[in-house]
């Protein structure tokens, strides 16, 4: 078992979002030999996958520098889907196969070319043949990796309109306020 004071110091450094000075550490852990604890941790961690490092007066844990290649650190960062894209994806999932005109008529606004491209690139939708009507428009459907990503076994797992209504997801904002007031009335 590690010395209790040393444990406290390492927990504080681990949970902190920024590097800390010994004085900042002391504000959390109270009186004790912070400098000594830092040296102990530094020594214990040497040669491990993550180490304690000092930058000026500030201390923090970081992954061992020689292992950085395992992390592939070009932090492009995950990007959230745009509102238009997620709505388009939802419409395709609920109505597939759907043409661009179907999607536009359900969303009530035009969609730009790039929106479907993003979904194609993410691998969540695929072209699903042409519809045999004038103009033979292309239809779109979801892919197995769509199901995979959203943790669904099949499209039938998507909540139906009644479920959405019961979960409060079909209410425009004004209705949501009204129903909050209503449920307060219900409780008496």
């Amino acid at each position, binding site marked *: 078992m590690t010395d209790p004071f040393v444990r406290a110091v390492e927990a504080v450094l681990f949970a902190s979002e920024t590097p800390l000075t010994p004085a900042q550490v002391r504000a959390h852990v109270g009186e004790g030999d912070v400098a000594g604890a830092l040296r102990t941790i530094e020594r214990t961690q040497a040669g491990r996958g993550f180490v304690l490092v000092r930058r000026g007066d500030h201390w923090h844990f970081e992954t061992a520098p020689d292992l950085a290649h395992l992390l592939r650190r070009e932090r492009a960062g995950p990007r959230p889907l745009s509102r238009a894209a997620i709505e388009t994806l939802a419409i395709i999932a609920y109505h597939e196969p759907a043409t661009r005109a179907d999607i536009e008529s*359900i969303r009530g606004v035009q969609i730009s070319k790039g929106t479907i491209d993003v979904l194609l690139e993410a691998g969540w939708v695929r072209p699903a043949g042409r519809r045999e009507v004038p103009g033979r428009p292309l239809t779109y459907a979801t892919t197995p990796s769509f199901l995979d990503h959203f943790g669904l076994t099949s499209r039938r797992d998507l909540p139906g309109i009644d479920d959405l209504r019961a979960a409060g*997801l079909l209410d425009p904002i004004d209705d949501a306020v009204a129903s909050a007031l209503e449920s307060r009335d219900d409780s008496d």
Partner: protein
Amino acid sequence: MDADIPALTIELDGWEGPLDLLLSLARAQKVDLRQLSILSLVEQYLAWIDRAATLRLELAADLLVMAAWLAYLKSALLLPRTPDMDPDPEELALRLQLRLERLGAMREAGAQLMARDRIGRDVFRRGDPEGLDSIRTTAWQAGLYDLIAAYGRVSARSRPVLHVVATRPVMTLDEALRRVEQLLGSPIEWTAIERFLPVDRDALFRRSALASTFVATLELARQGRVELRQDAPFAPIDVRRIA
């Protein structure tokens, strides 16, 4: 037994339905739910409803419906037993007990879950992780919640606007009690319950008034002020004043 009742403060906002109230009463007895006497619990519930009535508190309809059902259960449990009684009152009591045990168990389980060491409250993840980039996974992010919320949003926008009338004209129980009491001022013989309803063209309001008036006459019958009569299931219900 009566001495226990005032300990439970009558507060109306607190109860999420009759089962919740029953469970609180049962818990106040401080016995294992499996050892609970359903009969004494029923008596406590009825006493609670009584007290609320004397304090002129307006009770939710489901609490009153449960009271009527429990009053029936109590009389069935007290009557000499006949083997062919259907439904078997013992089974009804057992069912109620099992439901209370289940609700009690889940409430306890919920409390224990909330008391666990929770991330962001009791234990913390690393504050500033470098992050992993795995080139193989897609950069686009969206969760199932985002997806179904988006569909809800789109549907709400494009669906033909559906006006749901949230509040219907209803007759409250208090109002129904007042009306019936007024009409009882003059001596009446057997009178169909519909005669107590206000003349109103709104069918929904009439249905609400019928329900409230029925509950009001039940309450007055319980107080021994009126008698009720019904010849057969679904036959008209008649009311008369007890002289």
